[in-house]
């Protein structure tokens, strides 16, 4: 899932400066699951905005909406009737959602309330970690199902580097060395030979362009 977190409140405050009528739009997909954009966090941000407005003796009028998915215009268009009363939209969604809302309603300012962090998963309640960098060329079959691009701090293809210590990354003892994990899993599987071959430099050419996928069979035009 796409993992995001709420921006520092001061940053949000700066963005919405001068706006009194705000529409808070949550997204019920990935970022809701990671506690950044669900019903609860929208209400909480609303609550914070109101407390702040109380402190400044400057009233702020907010309304809240949840979208099934902020990244698809059909869902976003549901906001239509709520836009009129608002001076700006505060979107709680990943960057895709913010842009979709902005594309659907180009006449109104749309602010990102979240920072989009990574593609990852919750390892336990309250802990999310990065697991994929959408590198366009998956090699997990060669690395025991452990991604060195996302999980090695240097993204090495022929790791580990000299900084690997006791199975931990040189960057922090809290980060396991992805290459140690790969080595250990391959060893238990008896597949260490997969490491013998030197992996060629990665082809980043697709990643260097704005990504796109076109399925001719699905085109309607």
């Amino acid at each position, binding site marked *: 899932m796409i993992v995001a977190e709420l921006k520092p409140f001061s940053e949000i405050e700066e963005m919405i400066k001068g706006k009194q009528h705000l529409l808070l739009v949550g997204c019920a997909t990935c970022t809701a699951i990671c506690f950044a954009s669900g019903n609860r966090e929208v209400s909480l941000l609303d609550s914070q905005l109101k407390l702040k407005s109380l402190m400044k003796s400057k009233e702020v009028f907010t309304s809240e909406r949840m979208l099934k998915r902020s990244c698809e215009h059909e869902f976003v268009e549901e906001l239509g009737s709520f836009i009129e009363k608002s001076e700006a939209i505060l979107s709680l969604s990943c960057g895709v959602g913010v842009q979709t809302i902005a594309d659907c309603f180009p006449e109104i300012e749309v602010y990102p309330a979240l920072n989009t962090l990574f593609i990852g998963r919750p390892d336990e309640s309250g802990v999310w970690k990065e697991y994929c960098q959408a590198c366009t060329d998956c090699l997990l079959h060669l690395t025991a199902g452990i991604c060195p691009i996302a999980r090695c*701090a*240097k993204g090495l293809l022929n*790791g580990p*580097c*000299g*900084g690997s*210590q006791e199975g931990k990354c*040189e960057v922090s003892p809290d980060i396991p060395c992805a290459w140690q994990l790969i080595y250990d899993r391959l060893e238990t599987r008896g597949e260490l030979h997969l*490491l013998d071959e030197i992996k060629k*430099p990665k082809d980043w050419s697709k990643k260097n362009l704005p990504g796109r996928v076109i399925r001719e069979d699905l085109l309607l035009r």
Partner: protein
Amino acid sequence: MSNLEKLLRAGEFAVTAELGPPKSADRGVIEEKAEILKGFADAINITDCQTAVVRLSSIASAAILTSLGLEPIAQMTCRDRNRIALQSDILGAWALGIKNILLLTGDHPKFGNHPEAKGVFDLDSIQLIQMVKQMKEEKKFLNGEEMKVEPKFFIGAVENPFAGSLALRAGRLAKKVAAGAEFLQTQIVYNLEKFSRWMELVREQGLDEKIFILAGVAPIKSVGMAKYMQKKVPGMDVPEEIISRMEKTTDAKAEGIQICIDIIKALKEIKGVKGVHIMAIEWEEAVPEIVRGAGLYPRPSMGEN
């Protein structure tokens, strides 16, 4: 062919030293350090923004050394350049007369003075070694395009015998050899016993016949430094015995140098060790004493080529 390569191929026990460029544009610093090291090392490593701290460029510093009549080993990491910049700098370094190059992954930007920097790591060290070998032997860029004049570097790599499992580290050395590394400088050796076991593994795989291994050594300045390295520096293995020697002495610097000399003498006895690499960063003055003390002075010369 570099002087270092010639010595090694001739079977001489090699000595290399290390020189850290300044955090400024001051060429004078390099000249001063070069003056100290001159005659005591066969080649001198120039670090490449070590620990991700911005310093005078390693290639530029190496070129300065060349102009002073010393032989440099330019270090090059994967951290700050993509494959385009790396190849460009490799060509440039050769054109400037640099003949030895040491290729490594590089410390993570997090440790340096610009932790906000994006780490590049477009290639890893093994891919970089392979690329330089391809440029040298096949006269081809990474993309397969041909070049007219190739850089014929003596290609070095590094390895840490003390990080992670021995088997994993020895396996990685094999990969570096396969990629094209010709000489190797190791992490600083204090734990001779562990190093010997690693060498055994290396010999078992016949790797000592395929790559010139230079064991890393470094003099300890104080008991505090010894303890710091023991506890705080990742990938460093300092046995208790060294700490206690440092604790007992009244002249720490002298004892530190003596320990280093003792280690070098022991390393010379280990089969497959072809030289030492003395890392005395910011204590370059210690190098002549160590080289003398270890009976490695004067250095042989293979003459101009």
